[in-house]
């Protein structure tokens, strides 16, 4: 009897301890359990494909016949980096990205400053500026193609109406890339503007009141208050716009298919062309890895240069 009690009383804390240990283990595991669904999702659609594409990029293979994959080491990368067409593709991508990001963010910043006022016209302008963002880029591309037709297009008709010479738009190597920039900027400005307006409206009014008391000029207010307070928004747009311009595909696929003479061929379209049209799976994979590396580098670069200039409240 006595023994049993002792055993019991000795057991009880032990049990508790065990439960505590188990609970402790559970608390350690629990957060992982919570992120598991997301982790699985990211693994299936991001991490594993990324690793796998790196693996694929060292083989010569085609989607038509996956049974014959030939190991070629870094040959795909060597081929790409020594290919003049690929250089052209990289250059096009860079030019396009810089132009789209600078114009897209610059224009929308000005628009946002103007629209961030309480006027009657503002709602209408806001809606019309934002509307390109919600229209499918594919149908819009077809419309733009029609607008940009060198002979019968609306844009050239307008140019001629105001007495300017007709422009070649998509038909010439010198103007095609710029035409695509125009479409992308038109598409992205609305979204950027809305984000900027949201940012502008979250700036505390007392800052402006204080500035007004100090008789700060409009330019000083803009430079010393608006831009610094808006820097997180600016930073966010800079990164998202850069990445999306890097990955431009729809407009190229519909409007120019990389031409004329490769002048609008950019990385993602090049990857598609190599993989799906020419059956060069290895080259396409290697180009994908290069794209990943470039986007990664650019993002790190953005973070590094902006780290001191972005003010989070």
């Amino acid at each position, binding site marked *: 009897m006595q023994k049993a009690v002792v055993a019991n009383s000795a057991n009880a804390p032990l049990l508790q301890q065990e439960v505590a240990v188990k609970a402790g283990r559970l608390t350690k595991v629990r957060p992982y359990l919570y992120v598991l669904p997301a982790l699985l999702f990211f693994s*299936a*659609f991001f991490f*594993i*494909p990324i690793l*796998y594409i790196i693996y*694929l990029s060292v083989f010569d293979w*085609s*989607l*038509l*016949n*996956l*049974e014959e*994959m030939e190991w070629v080491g870094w040959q795909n990368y060597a081929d790409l980096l020594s290919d003049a067409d690929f250089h052209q593709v990289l250059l096009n991508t860079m030019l396009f990205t810089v132009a789209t990001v600078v114009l897209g963010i610059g224009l929308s910043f000005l628009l946002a400053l103007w629209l961030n006022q309480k006027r009657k016209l503002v709602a209408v302008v806001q809606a019309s500026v934002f509307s390109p963002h919600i229209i499918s880029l594919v149908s819009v591309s077809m419309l733009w*193609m029609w607008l940009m*037709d*060198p*002979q019968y297009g609306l844009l050239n008709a307008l140019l001629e109406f105001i007495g300017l010479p007709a422009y070649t*738009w*998509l*038909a*010439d*190597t010198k103007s095609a890339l710029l035409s695509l920039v125009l479409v992308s900027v038109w598409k992205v400005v609305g979204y950027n503007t809305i984000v900027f307006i949201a940012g502008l409206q979250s700036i505390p009014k007392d800052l402006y009141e204080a500035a007004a008391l100090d008789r700060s000029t409009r330019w000083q207010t803009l430079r010393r208050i608006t831009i610094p307070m808006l820097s997180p928004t600016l930073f966010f747009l800079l990164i998202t716009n850069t990445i999306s311009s890097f990955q431009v595909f729809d407009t190229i696929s519909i409007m*120019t*298919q*990389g*031409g*004329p*003479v*490769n002048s609008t061929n950019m990385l993602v379209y090049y990857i598609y062309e190599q993989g*799906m*049209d*020419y*059956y*060069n799976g290895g080259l396409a994979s290697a180009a994908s890895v290069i794209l990943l590396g470039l986007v990664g580098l650019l993002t790190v670069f953005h973070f590094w240069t902006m780290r001191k200039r972005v003010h989070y409240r």
Partner: protein
Amino acid sequence: MKKWNMSALACVVGLTALLTGCGSDKAATGGNAAAGSGQQSGTEQAQPVQIDFWYALGGKNGELIESMVKEFNDTHKDIVVKPAYQGDYYQNHAKVLAAISAGNQPDVTMVEVGSIGAFAEAKALEDLQPYAADTIDRYIPGLLGNSYWKDKLYAIPFNRSTPLLYLNRDMLKAAGLDPNGPKSWEELHEYAQKLTKSEGGKTSVYGFSTPIDIWFYEALVIESGGSILSEDGKQLAINSEAGKAPLEFWTNMIKEGVMKAPPGEKYNAWDVAKQDFVNQKVGMIFTSTGDLKGLSESAKFDVGAAFMPANKEYGAPTGGANLVILAKSPDAEKKAAWEFVKWMTDTPQSIKWSTQTGYMPVTKEAVESEEMKKYYETAPNFEVAVKQLEYAKARPMVPAYKEVQEIIMTELQRAVLNQATADEALQNAVDKSNKLLK
């Protein structure tokens, strides 16, 4: 290890396919259903075999394909063909490619004749010799040039074409020209000059227009007595007189302002040329005989079709697409697919297809049939392609040609846009292509 790689890749591709849209999702379930019925067909005859058929012709021609498939389904109770339009040749090839690696490929599809080699070399196509032993003789031999790869039969001619010179006869008559059109390059040049109209320094009507497309370039090279590839298919042979002549012919006419190079890439440029022709903005264009019905119906003037004008001789490549059966399909589907292919390319269907589109009939019987002869009397334009077949050659079809033809087109464009001389452009094309052809 290899197998594991493959299945992993198939998984990734499959997942992507699922993600990218319900289109491929549907195809996947269709494939499964078909596979299921295939297994059952041994024991249970009542269950019809389902096969997927992907085609690459839109508009009126696509509607005709749909209605022919419906007729097949109505007359063949044991087979159900599910047709699906997949965009132009390029898009269809890309989709078939993705579907093969994901394992939900169609059973029958159209493949553009120049790409048969690439698909066959990769073992994606079923060898049709065992099926076609007693039917192969019925097809016109001139159309079988792109059906064989390494002595095996992989493809059956279906919508087959050659390029033609289309004429706006009203415009030609008004300019005092022979409404039957120019017979030679010099005449074409002269006609183009006479048909071109300028007002105040702006050209309102161009005499001639053609997409700067590989197919027409091939025609002009053949007409100049040359060929695109060397005989062993390992070298690009266009840096020659015969390769240079077409390019100079085009650039001279463009510089002179009597030929319009339609803006746009690939089939976009074709659409522009056809649109300009219908709107009477150009007097003559090169396009496929397959456009005959469509253009004749939409044009409000007398449309004429003529041989591609000769340089040293007449000549044209054949083109269009052949029907193929995919090697990965299960056996029951392959059998059903062959029934379908055989039916689609049989004489009655071929006559119907030809008279309603402008593509050539593919069987000897069809060409010689009373029905076709009567039709040619009322619509002589439709016979031009068949007659031109005498001078036609098969398209190059080595596997690398898929990429080589894009290289050639890019270089031709470079010369046309004045960024390189003809010699530089052709040399460039040769240098790039020979690396791929070796």
